[in-house]
């Protein structure tokens, strides 16, 4: 009997996602990644004496957009509160967040629970308790990586706008947690709320994990996995933590409430800090800021302007374009790719052919070159034209594939390129027959092809 037969895992996720803004949540300093440390800071981000926060109006629409995208209530009045704690990368000694009155509450998203067999994939609806606006802290860079025993502070990230999105504890496995994160990330990207790039620290995840014997109602003691920074590690960490807790419970022990760290090399979790008593952050409404009031018309407008979201798009591709489910999922992971695909189909007509090219050639090229589809010179029309040449038999699939990278990166007219390179297939059988006797036939395969002409 495996751990998952004996115990049910109860998992809730807290996702911190950076908002796509030019400047910080409460200061005019730019939000940039990879700049020199302490370069993108304003007196407000340094917590200098006398500074005051001023809300970046740009975040309001992003919060509304997320709210309507996850079927949540966008609260017409929300309140910024101070979360008080001391840490060197927290310049004011408090983080401005939202506590009792978040901007977004009571939402949900549907996730597809992965299964071995495609037809067994199940849709589950996962509740989202709340999403609130808050500022990010700076970064502490400790010892070893700095080549000294000092800790260095980089405040470039201090004040970067975040939405903290808190799920209900309704996820039941590491795989579901992974599916939830992928679905949430896709939505964030679709609606333009966040780039949600985990490598850049724009999308971070804390997981609360507890186990209970199957059939039991009460929840077990939970532990918290902090700041997991890659999709792969989220599932690995949760799996490892489930195994660790199951072992403790099997031996009749008790899980201790703690913050855990995950080591991907050993695939084990270990206790980072035991929570003896609950942290007291002494939250209170920030007297420097007035409540955030959002007009209902603004929320309605966002609802009307909401783009088609990934799961609806996927179902439509399956239904209208007869794209197989597994392909539809890949095609809709990124909104620009999905839109590129659909536009190409509009020009070309055959969704199956276009899907093959997009899934294989286009996505592979993007991956190899580390590019986004918007960065390519390739237009849907040009790809459609290239594929039409193949359909017409004027270009072999092999030649088309050879032309593709250049067409993708430099653009141009596929017909002209074909002509320029002399790649057009020769279809005059008399001409070919005339050539054959002069050609040394080296292999039987070539011979077979030639004879068929």
């Amino acid at each position, binding site marked *: 009997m495996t751990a998952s037969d004996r115990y049910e895992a109860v998992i809730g996720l807290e996702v911190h996602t950076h908002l796509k803004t030019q400047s910080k949540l409460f200061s005019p300093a730019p939000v940039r990644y990879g700049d020199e440390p302490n370069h993108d800071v304003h007196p407000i981000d340094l917590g200098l*004496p006398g500074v005051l926060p001023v809300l970046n109006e740009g975040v309001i629409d992003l919060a509304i957009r997320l709210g309507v995208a996850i079927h949540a209530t966008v609260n017409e009045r929300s309140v910024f509160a101070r979360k008080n704690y001391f840490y060197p990368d927290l310049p004011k000694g408090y983080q401005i967040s939202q506590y009792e009155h978040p901007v977004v509450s009571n939402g949900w998203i549907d996730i597809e629970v992965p299964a071995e067999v495609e037809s067994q994939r199940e849709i589950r609806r996962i509740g989202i308790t709340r999403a609130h606006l808050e500022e990010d802290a700076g970064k502490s860079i400790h010892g070893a990586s700095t080549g000294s025993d000092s800790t260095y502070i980089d405040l470039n990230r201090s004040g970067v706008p975040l939405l903290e999105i808190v799920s209900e504890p309704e996820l039941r496995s590491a795989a579901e947690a992974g599916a939830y994160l992928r679905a949430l990330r896709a939505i964030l990207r679709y609606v333009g709320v966040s780039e949600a790039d985990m490598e850049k620290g724009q999308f971070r995840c804390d997981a609360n994990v507890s186990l209970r014997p199957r059939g039991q109602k009460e929840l077990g003691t939970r532990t918290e996995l902090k700041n997991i920074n890659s999709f792969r590690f989220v599932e690995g960490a949760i799996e490892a933590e489930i195994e660790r807790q199951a072992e403790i419970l099997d031996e009749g022990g008790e899980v201790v409430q703690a913050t855990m760290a995950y080591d991907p090399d050993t695939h084990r979790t270990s206790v980072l800090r035991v929570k003896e008593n609950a942290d*007291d952050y002494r939250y209170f409404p920030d007297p420097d800021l*007035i409540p955030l009031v959002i007009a209902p018309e603004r929320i309605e407008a966002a609802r009307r302007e909401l783009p088609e979201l990934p799961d609806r798009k996927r179902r439509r591709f399956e239904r209208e374009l007869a794209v197989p489910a597994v392909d539809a999922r890949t095609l809709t992971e990124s909104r620009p790719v999905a839109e590129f695909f659909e536009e190409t189909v509009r020009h070309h007509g055959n969704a199956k052919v276009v899907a093959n090219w997009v899934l294989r050639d286009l996505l592979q090229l993007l991956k190899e070159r580390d590019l986004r589809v918007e960065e390519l010179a390739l237009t849907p029309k040009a790809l459609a034209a290239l594929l039409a040449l193949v359909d017409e038999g004027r270009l072999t699939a092999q030649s088309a594939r050879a032309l593709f990278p250049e067409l993708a990166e430099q653009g141009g007219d596929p017909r002209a390129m074909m002509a320029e390179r002399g790649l057009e297939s020769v279809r005059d059988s008399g001409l070919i027959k005339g050539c054959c006797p002069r050609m040394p036939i080296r292999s039987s395969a070539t011979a077979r092809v030639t004879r068929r002409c």
Partner: protein
Amino acid sequence: MGETLRAQRKALGAGEISSVELVDAALARAEQNDLNIVIGVRREAALSEAVEADGRRAAGTLRSPLDGIPLLLKDNMVQQGEPATCASRILEGFVSPYSATVVERLAGAGAVVIGRSNMDEFAMGSSTESGVYGPSGNPWDPERSCGGSSGGSAAAVAAGVSAGALGSDTGGSIRQPAAFCGVVGLKPTYGRVSRWGLVAFASSLDQIGPLAHTAEDCAWLLQAIAGHDPRDSTSTPQPVPDYSAALSGDVSGLTIGLPREYFAEQGADPVVIERVREAVAELQRAGAKTREVSLPNTSYAIAAYYLIATAEASSNLARYDGVRYGRRAGSCERLREMYERSRSEGFGAEVKRRILLGTYVLSAGYFDAYYLKAQRVRTLLRSDFEQAFEQCDVIATPTSPEVAFRLGEKTVDPLSMYLSDVYTVSANLAGIPGLSLPCGEAHGLPVGLQLLGRVLDEATLLRVGDAYQGRTDHHLRRPPERT
């Protein structure tokens, strides 16, 4: 010495004195500083600004009535390139890279900041004794307190160092020292003057305001610093009226409310109460009506004030941790040690007391009983005033229950110090404006009349104050010359 802004402006206008001479004389008095009023001067910068002001005068391009006039700032407002210490060791070595909005506006008006005045540490106190620079003396009696926390600014005006100064008022910190020093002090409506660049003590209560000899001088100063500021989210977008234009000298038809609870206050000096009643009688002779009003929740104000102010302060002062600026305790091995020692060595006793109190107020399990309840009292106080102002235009009370107390008299008993704010804290909790005017003497020391007004109605307060000063000469009295 002892001139008003009006007199200085007139002398400059008549060419009797240059701004450079005026500023130089003010600097000299500030540097002499035998009452420990001024804790830093900016001689070169001030003189070069005075040269520019004289140039503008010659060219006929004056910026405002304050152009070329020397002023002092309480040391909790930052000015680019200058220290700002809040009279605290923890801000040792800090030099501000930016200026407060009021500093920018004064510069825009052509005024010349000559230096920084002494205060209670982080504005926490009512006597200007708690700061690292030690106590300031009251110009009327150096053995006595000049009040606080803006004691340095009030004493500077009284002693004639500068004719005007800015202070900040969280629970009476402009009005009470104004009363103790026999000058005029105005706490504007919360949100009327930007707090950008004012080092926060209690964010929902703090407000910058002017101190000077006359209501008219205060009107000019308020005119220069008031107005909406997008850098302060709590600043009001309401337009700023012409305060000088409101000084009609006429109070006929105005109703002055006398709150029953303030005059019944046990422990108030009867001579102080008597002077205030005489001042009200003078305003009646000028044509104002009076009536008794009630502010029934007054007795809860001090308690609510010290809960809210300390709660906010405990959070506002968390940034002084020795990490980025100010004082850091040397040779610490561990982070916790650095925090503990930097803050223990950097803050004085009164500041520590308030941080501890405020931390307690916000703690889980106590928050509802203290912080939330205090906020409810605040709502009640606000509605007390709203109801009272349906029956009157301004409210008159003593500014302080007593005249300037002796230095050291109350530092041993913090609670008695807190109780001396009894007449002033309500205005901060309700967010309304308050003006303190000299209205005579008790025991040879100045007494302050406090006038409270409706939200954003500073104009009426200044009008009443100006009319009163037009009929009396208390504001003309100066402390004895010191040699």
